[in-house]
Structure formats: structure tokens, C-alpha cells
């Protein structure tokens, strides 16, 4: 439980994927990129650093926020990754719980900015909240397409429906793309990295964080990335090839790497969107599309 799919496994996998991401982007940009232990070294260094907060910050709260958000993504990761191996952890409704758990860190991220009371933190936090309402809705609505098609609110049910039929990526290809967009928003990656826009907001809500607390936020990010990717693999790419066997695990890892590759390509080729462009895009195009898809699924 501690090793797989617990804390150590999730953090190690998160760091691995983070490294792959950085390495890929570096190669796209014509750079060499960091060595494989870079995320680990960064984390160790951050944990050893002095922890400074601005005067007037509620210290307990500032510590609680990154801890809570780390805990929520670990819990979500635990449920998502156990579903790769066994059906025993799955229960009806766990799918909704996972999506909820994955959306909590963004809220906590906003609060994290609010509590440290720097001007960049607060503005960055406001932006993340503005963004939150567009991509969270998109993510939930799109993913519910998978669960409507399978007639089940559990990960197990979604997997089972795909194993007996086609993987959902084929009938719901648009849905998959929209879910990717939602995931990018959730992870605040480029082009959805508006709250952390370096050239305006420094790092947004995280500006005033340092040391262990910043490390927690970073770990949240690492684990959230792999959990999100794994969730998409389960919802859209499951099938006979991802059943509980060594081959199944191997193909699942390959699929996850493929999604990570897509994420890296996307962040390398797009500029950061402006907040109005993002909200326009999400509410005028993406969310209507995903609603339309859900309606089609229900009708057909």
C-alpha cells in the first residue's frame, strides 16, 4: 500500500513524468535538458531551504493548504492507479470522487495565493479562480461522456464497458481532445498557464512560498499530472490490452507516456492565452461541443 499505489510510487512516477516533460520540451526547443534526477534534486533542495513567509500571513493556514492539496491528489492517484491492478478498491461513484479530488488543488491554489497576501499572489489567485470555472466544467462535462456511455459512475464500470466494446477514444475522439484541454487547464500548463504567467505574475499564488511549502506545491503538481494522465488513459484508452496483467501494465505505461508527449508538444507550440481568450474559447466552443457530444451519446 505504501509502495504501490501509494505515496512513494506516485511521487516517483510524478517526478519521472515531470523529468520526461522537461526533457522533451528542452529537446523541442533545441536545448539539452536536465538529467533524470533533477526533480528529485529540486525537491530535496527545497526541503532543505529556509522557509520564509511575509509578515501577517497565517502560518498554520499557509502550511495546511499545500499539505491538503498534496493529500487530495495522492488520494485521487491512489484510486486511479489501483484501478490498473485490481477491482477491489473501486466502488460505485468513485469516478465522481476522483474528479472532485483532482479539482480541489486548484481551489486550494487560489486560497494559497489569498493567504500570503502579496499583490501578485492575489491577482494570480483571482486569475486561477476565473480559469477554474471554465476548465473544471469542461473537464467534468467531458469526462461524464465516458461514464454516460458506460452507464456507470465507477472507474471499474468505465473500464469494463471498454473491455467489452471499443475504447472510448474512438467514438468520443472529440471528447478525448476536450478532456485533454481540460487537463491542461487543471495542470496550469502552457497555454493555460495564465495564473502563473511569469512575465506578469511572477509565479502567481506561489510567489511568496518557499522551502518546504513550495516543495509541497510542486509535488502536488507532479502527482496531479500523472494522476490526470492515468485517469484519461482509463477513461479513453482502456480495453483488453490494459487488463490486469504485465502486458496490461506495460501498455498502460506506454499510453501514459504518449499522453505526456502530447502535453509537452502542446506546451511547446502555443503562446500563453489571455484570460479573455481562454474563457471565450472554453465557453463558446469547448463546453458547447462537449455538451453536444454528451447529448449525442445519450440519444444514440
Amino acid at each position, binding site marked *: 500500500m505504501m509502495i504501490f499505489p501509494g505515496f512513494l510510487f506516485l511521487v516517483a512516477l510524478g517526478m519521472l513524468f515531470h523529468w520526461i516533460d522537461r526533457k522533451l520540451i528542452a529537446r523541442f526547443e533545441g536545448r539539452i535538458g536536465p538529467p533524470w534526477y533533477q526533480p528529485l534534486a529540486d525537491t530535496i533542495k527545497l526541503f532543505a531551504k529556509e522557509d520564509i513567509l511575509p509578515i501577517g500571513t497565517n502560518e498554520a493556514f499557509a502550511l495546511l493548504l499545500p499539505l491538503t492539496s498534496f493529500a487530495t491528489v495522492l488520494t485521487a492517484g491512489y484510486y486511479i492507479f489501483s484501478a490498473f491492478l485490481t477491482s477491489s478498491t473501486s466502488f460505485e461513484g468513485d469516478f465522481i470522487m476522483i474528479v472532485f479530488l483532482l479539482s480541489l488543488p486548484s481551489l486550494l491554489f487560489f486560497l494559497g495565493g489569498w493567504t500570503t497576501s502579496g499583490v501578485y499572489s492575489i*491577482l494570480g489567485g483571482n486569475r486561477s479562480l476565473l480559469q477554474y470555472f471554465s476548465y473544471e466544467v469542461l473537464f467534468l462535462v467531458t469526462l461524464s461522456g465516458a461514464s454516460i456511455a458506460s452507464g456507470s459512475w465507477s472507474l471499474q464500470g468505465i473500464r469494463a464497458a471498454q473491455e467489452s466494446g471499443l475504447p472510448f477514444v474512438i467514438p468520443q475522439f472529440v471528447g478525448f481532445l476536450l478532456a485533454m484541454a481540460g487537463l491542461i487547464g487543471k495542470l496550469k500548463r502552457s497555454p493555460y498557464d495564465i495564473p502563473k504567467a511569469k*512575465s506578469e505574475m511572477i509565479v502567481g499564488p506561489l510567489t511568496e512560498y518557499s522551502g518546504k511549502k513550495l516543495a509541497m506545491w510542486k509535488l502536488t503538481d507532479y502527482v496531479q499530472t500523472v494522476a490526470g494522465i492515468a485517469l484519461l488513459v482509463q477513461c479513453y484508452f482502456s480495453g483488453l490490452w490494459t487488463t490486469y496483467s504485465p502486458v496490461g501494465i506495460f501498455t498502460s505505461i506506454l499510453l501514459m507516456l504518449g499522453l505526456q508527449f502530447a502535453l509537452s508538444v502542446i506546451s511547446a507550440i502555443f503562446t*500563453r492565452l*489571455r484570460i479573455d481568450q481562454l474563457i471565450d474559447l472554453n465557453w463558446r466552443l469547448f463546453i458547447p461541443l462537449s455538451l453536444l457530444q454528451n447529448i449525442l451519446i445519450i440519444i444514440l
Partner: protein
Amino acid sequence: MSRVTIPIGPQHPLLKEPLSFNITLEGENVIDSVLRLGYVHRGIEKLAQSRSFVQNITLFERVCGICSHIHTTTYCQAVEGLLGLEVPRRGVYIRMLLCELERIHSHLLWLGVLAKNIGLNTVFMYAWRDREIVLDLMEEISGGRVSHAINTIGGVRKDLNQDQMKKLTVGLDELIGRVKDLLRIVKNDRSFKARTRGIGFLSQEDVRRYCVVGPVARASGVGIDLRKDAPYAYYDELSFNVVTMNEGDVWARAMVRIHETTEAIRLCQQMVEKLPSGEISATMKRKVPAGEFISRSEAPRGEVIYFVKSDGSQTPARVKVRTPTLTALITLPQQLRGLQMADVSAVVAGVDLCIACADR
């Protein structure tokens, strides 16, 4: 909605040099901005009065960290004017060659900064990687990547040999292809255009009212370029186009600068071809006669003016430098008004600020 004032600078990831803005925001919209300058004032003009004419070359090389060569060139032209010194053709050509290489370097650097500020790191890395080629060429010629120390009163200090000419030809050919790729991105990439079109607008009247010069003016349809309008050195012997656009926004500035880079590469190729033989410098008389001289030249950012006054002593009585950045800086509050916070970074990058030049 309540207003927030956020400080940008003197230290901020957006700015590479110390400058301070206080931006008042209402929500995401910029209501007002207050500029403050002077963080890198080094008193160079005053210092110049206590150094000899030759020593001052080193000093003026340090006015700007990017276009160092154009400053020494303009200063040397002024002193040569006072002396009535005829500079050998070959010397002037080598000077011009470095000026144009510097323009390529400056414009590529600028494109990288703009791309970085709108969150397009890939183009930032590409532009700066391609800039390495031109930096290597400049190092090959002068021994310095940024500060060349090649100008002297009466000509240049280092000659070009056949080997260096060959390297120049190869390097410039490669650069042409690279710049073409960058042009394709700027011209066609939709996400790049989404972040740069229609922001930071300056009309032709604005340009004239604020006396804006250089690529920013040319992007608003004002085709001023000293190399054509008042040719100094031997620019009248070479063929090149003055690039203008009419959009007047950040995207137009990007287009103008990239086209100018191509033009600068063409100029360099012509100069390598036409490079005259002979001496590279004339001997300077020790004593500079009393008088005044104004020397002007087209730096990567626009017109640079040096006013040099001599009273017949060892040191200049007054040197006044006017750099193009200042004119662009004062337009910023107008450009920023009504924009969104996210556009601030693109607009600030768009005018290509060189604070070290402006403060001196």
C-alpha cells in the same frame, strides 16, 4: 470593482533591465501606468568630460549592452568631423559591417524576448540559438561578442582576412535560412498573432507627435531610416529596402524587425563582396580643434545622436547622447491604457526598451 496597483520593476521577470512601472488595474484592465526611470544612471556624459577623446571610446561602448558598436561609431564620426579626418574606405566598411551584424543580433534578441514574454518559449530559444551564429561572427571579427572595442578615431583597429571573410559568407548564408523560418512563425502562427495583433497601437500622428524613431515608427507607417534619409558612412553605395508596415501594433513591429534582419543580412553580404582594399585607419591628430559636431546614425532601435563640443583642450567640453529608447518609453503609458494586464508584457517587449541607453 476595486483598483489594484501592481508594481512592475525595478526588479521583475518581465524586465531585463531596471525600470519601474506602477500599473493601476481594475480587474484585468490597465487604467493607468506611471513610469520611473533612472535606476541605471551612470553619469556617462559627465564622466566623458574628464577623459580624453580616445579614452571616451571605451566609455561610450558601455552606454548600451546590445548596440555597443553603433555608439562608438557615432561618437568616432563626431570626433572625426571635428578633426576633419578622412577615414579610409576599408575602415568605414568594416565599421558598417559590424553595425549591421549588430542589428541582426539586436533584432533576434528582441524577438526572443517578445516570444518569452507572451509565453512562447520555443521561439525564444530558437531566436537566441540563431543569434549565436551572429555573435560568433562578431567575435571572429573583433574578438568580442558584445563589446567589440574595434572602433578608433580615424578608422578601425582590426582588419579582416580571407579566412574571416569566408566564415562570414558561410555564417550569413546560414542565417538567411534561419531568419526565414522565424519569419514564417511570426507571419503565420495563429497563437502568436492572437497575442500580438491589435495591441500597443500607435498611429502615424502619435509617432510624429512623440518623435518616435526606428522600427516602432516604421511599423506605424512612418518610413524614416537615417541610412536612406541622411546616408552616413557609405550606405548610399549599398542597396537595401526600408521596411514599413501600417498596422502599428506589436505584431507589425515584429514583422518590421524580422524583415529588417533579412535586409541587414543582405547588406552584410554586399559589404563582404564589395569590401575595398587599402588602409583601415587614418592617423589622428593629437589636438582636437575647438568646435561642435553633431553625428547621427541608425541604431537597431532608431536614430542615435551624438553632440560633441570641443574647446581645444585634451578632453571634450560636452558630449550629449540622445538614444532612441527614450522616445519609445514616453509612448508607453498611452499604449498601455485600456489594455489587459496580460498584454502589458507584449507591449513592453514590443517597443524594445534599452534602459541602459535611456539612463546612461
